[in-house]
């Protein structure tokens, strides 16, 4: 296929690992294996970020996604004591229809991108993805969204604590 010609080997291997791990996330029966495969996926996406000249983003991706969010998922999995036996059974028909839906979307998106006729690309400066540049842009152009992000985080944190807090009164009534 002409699509894969002249591609450097690191990119091909990385993409292959990414897609394989993502498929394993979806198809694995054991939720713990899914989480571990998703962590691997995030690692390979971080490697893609480094190829794409976004060095700080790669580190942040590792810390926030692979470090924080996935550990949160693992904690919840182990807290709820979920394993293979608690996996709900699903019918084959459901899987086939889901695969058809996702495949159709893939065909449509790629076809529309092929028709888009993207302009000739040029590379950006090497130091664009470093902390210096990103911090300057974040603190000048994106200052208001940045502050709003803080408010969003606070409200999400309060909401999560309120939701997950064990309600003692209702517990006594039910038990």
């Amino acid at each position, binding site marked *: 296929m002409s699509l894969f010609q*002249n591609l450097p080997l690191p990119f091909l291997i990385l993409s292959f690992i990414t897609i394989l791990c993502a498929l394993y*996330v979806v198809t694995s029966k054991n939720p713990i294996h899914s989480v571990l495969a998703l962590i691997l996926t995030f690692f390979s996406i971080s490697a*893609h970020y480094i190829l*794409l000249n*976004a060095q700080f983003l790669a580190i942040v991706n590792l810390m926030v996604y692979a470090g924080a969010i996935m550990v*949160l998922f693992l904690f919840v999995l182990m807290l709820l004591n979920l394993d293979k036996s608690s996996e709900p059974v699903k019918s084959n028909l459901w899987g086939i229809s889901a695969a058809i839906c996702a495949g159709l979307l893939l065909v449509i998106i790629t076809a529309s991108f092929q028709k888009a006729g993207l302009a000739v690309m040029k590379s950006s400066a090497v130091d664009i993805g470093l902390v210096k540049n*990103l911090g300057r842009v974040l603190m000048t152009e994106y200052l208001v969204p940045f502050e709003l992000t803080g408010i969003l985080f606070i409200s999400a944190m309060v*909401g999560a604590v309120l939701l997950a807090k064990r309600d003692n009164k209702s517990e006594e009534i039910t038990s």
Partner: protein
Amino acid sequence: MLGIFQNIEISHYIYLSCVLFCIGLFGVLFRRNAIILLMCIELMLNSVNLLMAAFTEYMGDQNANGQMFVFFIMVVAAAEAAVGLAILVMVYRNTKKTDVSFLDGLKD
């Protein structure tokens, strides 16, 4: 970036992101376990992030606007995961299940 990576075009990243997004979508449609659903949503968000970073690089954007958007998407994803997992823990405490097909109380 480096000489050996000159051959990678933006279209390759577009295809990779599309495939990742569709895998995530397939997971959301296929799986019944609520935790796996949340993970598939994270996967879809990550594919979008990858495409944002790719366009930042290939469009020669000196202000890194695409990478800024990746930051904000990450923040939203973190908040979403925290709240989603809190809801999930609450649902599990009440029903002892994480199967989303049991959560059809609004249907009747």
